[in-house]
């Protein structure tokens, strides 16, 4: 299956986020690798996804699971070779699957040669590639992001006897983007991978590139200028490539990252995700519709990226204090589940392994405006292991079968890069790909089905949205429209059966075709359209005039 030629391919994409390290081990060393991932591309093709997003695979001391890069132009030896990566890229493209890779622009590992040079002396030519200071009193307006581990954004370097700036862990010094040489070098890094055939970058932690006194050092105009410059170079030298912004910000602050269609192609919609969980628990659509109503229009070539869970904690930075307290109480009663300002849990355990809720949340993920991202393992309902530190509890090996090491690796269990989930509910004997492939009604089969239905129309990826404010607040209903095509989505956020009357007067005379079973529902008449819905049920209807 060839890759589509459409430059806006990302609008129709369904992205699968995968960690090479924990997906599949081909050589039995206990660590996932490129060849292992390549072997599983058929599985991903069967699932129906159209792009994979690889978490960092660069040489790294792995003190932050690869987000601490020590060499931007190589691959970590545990995952294979650069040639292995090339083959993976090729194999993915042959299957019509695009490849998105991480690019951590903001910082490097303190083991990166650039930083080693920079700290070696104040006169070193690379000194100015990082942000140094003789005092830790600068940029006091910048918040500390990793509250659980860091007490300051400055760290003392005993070698050069000065402070260096870091917005994340202290072993991740921030690059100095005021230095033109840094900007040039980072473009060269990106170009290296683009030349190889990589389709897109997820640019990590982009709001923090530039620091200025008397600001919070986030979303600064200078940062946007740098990002626009990268985009300009990308457009000049490549076609059909994409930049995805990781900027955990409020919608109004996110909007500038799209520029006038000249900055990022896509950005994660961080504030929406916790509100989907909140709406489900409250049985009330208000949090969801409110945040989407606050979401500004974006240029036609741009797209939001939606997700339910990812490799990080379920971030609660973009919620109010009251909402955060509510989320903690509802989803992380056990305090060990909390990390920084978030909850380090996977989708299925968050939803008490309730299949109906898992389906409803995925239904919303696939039907709200944006490109959905599925986190590896969530398609089979994998669990987490909160006894593992940091965010490692949601980064356990993929569960392929009920056999040895869940089919992830042939290595001895003690050599695995991370322990498999083994509890009775979520453990690999109970939750695995092989078993779910063989069951017609498994979550995996259901996910394949919803992906197929989503891809059967362009309306979800490119259409407009209009909320139908049904008087029943437990029902979240919206119309997605693209040209003459219209799809009605109705979600019951409640644990109980609900009746709802929808105002579909504009579609009087249309019949409703339920998109999963292709069954016909009654024609829209004079009266509001009455639907009764089971607990957590959702419908997708194609509206059609016959």
């Amino acid at each position, binding site marked *: 299956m060839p890759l589509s030629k459409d430059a806006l391919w990302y609008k129709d994409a369904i992205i699968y986020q995968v960690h090479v390290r924990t997906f599949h081990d081909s050589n039995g060393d206990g660590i996932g690798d490129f060849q292992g991932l390549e072997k599983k591309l058929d599985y991903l093709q069967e699932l129906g996804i159209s792009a994979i997003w690889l978490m960092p695979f660069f040489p790294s001391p792995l003190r932050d699971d690869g987000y601490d890069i020590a060499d931007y132009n190589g691959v970590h030896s545990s995952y294979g070779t650069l040639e292995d990566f090339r083959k993976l890229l090729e194999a993915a493209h042959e299957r019509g699957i695009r490849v998105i890779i991480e690019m951590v622009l903001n910082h490097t590992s303190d083991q990166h040669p650039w930083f080693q040079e920079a700290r070696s002396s104040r006169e070193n030519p690379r000194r100015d590639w990082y942000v140094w200071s003789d005092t830790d009193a600068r940029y006091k307006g910048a918040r500390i992001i990793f509250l659980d581990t860091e007490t300051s954004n400055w760290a003392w370097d005993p070698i050069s006897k000065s402070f260096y700036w870091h917005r994340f862990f202290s072993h991740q010094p921030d690059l100095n983007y005021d230095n033109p040489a840094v900007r040039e070098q980072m473009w060269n890094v990106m170009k290296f991978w683009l030349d190889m055939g990589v389709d897109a970058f997820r640019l990590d932690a982009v709001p923090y590139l530039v620091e200025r006194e008397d600001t919070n050092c986030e979303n600064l105009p200078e940062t946007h200028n740098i990002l626009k410059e990268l985009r300009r170079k990308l457009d000049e030298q490549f076609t059909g490539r994409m930049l995805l912004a990781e900027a955990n910000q409020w919608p109004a602050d996110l909007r500038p990252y799209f520029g006038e269609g000249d900055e990022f192609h896509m950005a994660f919609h961080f504030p929406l995700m916790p509100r989907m969980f*909140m709406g489900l628990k*409250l*049985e*009330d*659509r*208000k*949090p969801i*519709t*409110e945040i989407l*109503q606050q979401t500004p229009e974006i240029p036609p070539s741009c797209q939001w990226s939606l997700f339910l869970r990812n490799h990080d904690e379920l971030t609660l930075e973009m919620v*109010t204090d*009251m*909402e955060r307290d*509510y989320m903690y109480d509802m989803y992380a009663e056990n305090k060990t589940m909390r990390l920084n300002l978030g909850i380090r849990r996977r989708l299925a355990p968050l939803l008490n392994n309730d299949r109906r809720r898992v389906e409803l949340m995925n239904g919303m993920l696939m039907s709200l405006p944006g490109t959905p991202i599925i986190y590896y393992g969530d398609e089979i309902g994998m669990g987490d292991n909160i006894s593992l530190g940091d965010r490692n509890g949601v980064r356990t090996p993929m569960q392929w079968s009920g056999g040895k090491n869940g089919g992830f690796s042939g290595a001895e269990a003690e050599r695995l890069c991370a322990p498999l989930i083994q509890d009775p509910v979520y453990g690999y004997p109970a939750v695995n790909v092989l078993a779910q492939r063989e069951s017609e009604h498994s979550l995996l089969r259901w996910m394949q089905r919803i992906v197929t239905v989503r891809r059967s129309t362009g309306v979800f990826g490119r259409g407009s949205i209009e*909320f139908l*404010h*049904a*008087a*029943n*607040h*437990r029902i979240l209903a919206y119309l997605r429209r693209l040209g003459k095509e219209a799809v009605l989505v109705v979600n019951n956020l*409640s644990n*109980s059966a*609900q*009746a709802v*009357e929808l105002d579909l007067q504009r579609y009087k005379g249309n019949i409703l075709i339920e998109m999963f079973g292709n069954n016909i529902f009654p024609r829209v008449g*004079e*009266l*509001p359209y*009455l639907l009764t819905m089971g607990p957590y049920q959702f419908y997708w209807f194609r509206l059609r005039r016959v």
Partner: protein
Amino acid sequence: MNVDMETKSQSAPSRERVAAIHTELKVEDETFLTDNFLRQLINVGEVDILVGLPTYNNAKTIGSVVRAIQSGILRSFPRERAVIVNADGGSRDGTPELVTGISIDDGRPASNLFALRTLHSISTRYAGSPSSGVALRTILAAAELLRAKACVVMSPESTNIETEWLSKLLRPIYRDGFDLVTPTYRRHKFEGLLMTNLLYPMIRALYGVRIHEPYTSEFGFSGRLGSQFLSQNGWNDGQGVELRLTLAAITGGYRISESFLGEKDHVERRASDLVPTLRETVGVLFSALESDFAKWSTVAVAQPEVPTGGGPGALLDPMRVNRKRLREMFSTGIVELESVFRSILSPSTLAELQRIARSGEDEFHYSGELWVKTVYEFAASFQKSVISRDHIIQALAPLFRGRAFTFLTENRNASANDVENNIEGLCLEFERLKPYLLQVWKSGE
């Protein structure tokens, strides 16, 4: 806007659907809740908190009341599913629209308050003339259909309502498992004389429960008490329904608590309001004594105070009361209703009252003991229906005025403590003479 007006041309659910709902929910009278109101309830769904607002032309005061309610819900119960239910008697001043206008949903965010979830404010116009009984019945029915855990009824007339009132009336129910929460207020020492001279002491003596405001326009109740009360018979006249709810809670063994709300605005009442008030309170109490005889006749002593949040105390500000008129109405009543009193009162009690009626202002003294005997004899005569029960209640009015005159005179210069002590003394008198009530109750059986 969720105003339920049958004349509005909103789409109606099918008759079959509504009929099915009626049947399933066992609402006894099919016309009791309108289709439109049912549709609103369907949209609201199950709730944790229900705030009932009975209204009739309250546009002048309802704005501040609903704002306080909205604020109270958002502050004290931000996570709970809440609804405000307005049962309106046919207001023509836009009262229902003012109530429904404070809904918070994704189409109408709260202007300056943060709301975690949707807050429905719905309204229905019940059939018939304005009646607190029908209004409360509507609210109770809504509470049952929505499976509300904790409910509160708020007065639409309060001009000094505080945001905290809602929490004070609801929290003991929602958090602590109480079934009825009645308020206590800081009132002027001469306010609520019927309460302090009859209802409180008599209920305390007979039922053994100390509830300072057993008849009030603001109170909280649990869903289970509401459901049980809704299923009781006797909704036809709907009179004194608030007091009946209190008595039902007492006799049903429900957990009762009091909450101190603070100062209560004084509402001016006309003299002509007394008889209807007596019907709604004393009439209801006397009726209840008949059905509750097995219970109250065996209660020996009053239990300790129910839990309360702070003491009410009394305000001592000057308050104008026309004492002369009270005495005149008492004396006139004694003369004009002599034949009625002969049917109700014992000869000795009547003779004593006549003696007092003839006395001058300085000698006028309607003692506590005589007052308690009077009330008990009225109660016994009411039970025996010696004459029309309504006439019995009406006949109590002049006597109450005489007792009020004495109370005002005795306490003219009394401190708040003195007033409380005097009320306590009257309570003890009611308790001491309880055997007398049993005696006159059973006489002639």
